[in-house]
């Protein structure tokens, strides 16, 4: 399939760019399809391409030495990922895996440099995109004071627990995040950590507190 000009117009990078300029940029854009759960970018590898999501969604994450994943963002249509290493020349700072079948537009590193040289007005758009990204990541860094967050999530579960025979309000991960003053992704990881520690069990739509004492200890731990 050919790269669609209509889509390129909607990408924040190319906001306000004239048709003639877009036509010449289009020559440097390639299309790539990927299946569900396919790794598109691997953390640590030399960066080759900047990607824009055309359809589907991509999860961007870092992996710890122990193999735990921390989600940094979910990239949706018209958004980009793997921008940073294209501009600073370093390796991929994170991995990217598709959440379903996706179509991507990619621009190779050298071609992106050529685009910026030949169309310098795009640099302001790029700056805005990266500035917004920095703001989001600063917020995530603030949330990732992990030990405190896991205590707050444990407290929420402790206080919200119902007996098996009663019915009470239910909480989405987003609601728990709002209550804990953190990001949804951090709540997800906290729940997995609490399960690994044996305090809870995740069973489909249920969070079952299996060890109330353990949960209380985690809740009361302050550092």
């Amino acid at each position, binding site marked *: 399939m050919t790269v669609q000009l209509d889509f390129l117009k909607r990408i924040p990078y190319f906001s306000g760019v004239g048709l003639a300029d877009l036509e010449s940029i289009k020559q440097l854009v390639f299309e790539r399809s990927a299946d*569900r*759960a396919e790794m598109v970018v691997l953390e640590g590898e030399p960066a080759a391409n900047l990607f824009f999501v055309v*359809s*589907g*969604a991509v999860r961007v994450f870092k992996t710890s030495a122990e193999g735990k994943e921390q989600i940094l963002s*979910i990239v*949706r*249509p018209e958004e980009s990922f793997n921008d940073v290493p294209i501009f600073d020349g370093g390796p991929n700072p994170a991995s990217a895996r598709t*959440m*379903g*079948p*996706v179509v991507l537009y990619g621009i190779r590193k050298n071609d992106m440099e050529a685009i910026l040289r030949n169309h310098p007005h795009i640099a302001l758009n790029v700056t805005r995109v990266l500035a917004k990204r920095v703001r989001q990541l600063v917020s995530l860094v603030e949330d990732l004071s992990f030990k405190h967050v896991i205590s707050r999530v444990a407290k929420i*579960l402790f206080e*919200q*627990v*119902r*007996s*098996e025979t009663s019915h009470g309000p*239910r*909480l*989405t*991960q*987003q*609601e728990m995040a709002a209550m804990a003053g953190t990001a*949804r992704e951090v709540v*997800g990881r906290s729940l997995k950590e609490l399960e690994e520690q044996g305090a809870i*069990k995740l069973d*489909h*739509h*249920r*969070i*079952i*507190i*299996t060890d*109330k004492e353990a949960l209380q200890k985690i809740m009361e731990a302050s550092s």
Partner: protein
Amino acid sequence: MIEMPIIDAQKCDGCGLCVNVCHCNALALVKNVITIIETVKCDWCTDCEAVCRTGAIRCPFEIISQDS
């Protein structure tokens, strides 16, 4: 009763991202609004909730104690 994600049709903009990411084939777009077609298959991964930009699909957890 089988638990299913909660859909707010008013908020759904028909983008279809949730259908795209659902690996259980539990969701479909019907007349441009998201619909659950197969709740037995849903494994509550909550990816649909994570990708939704408008908050139209929610996967709330019930928090219960194992104590009997």
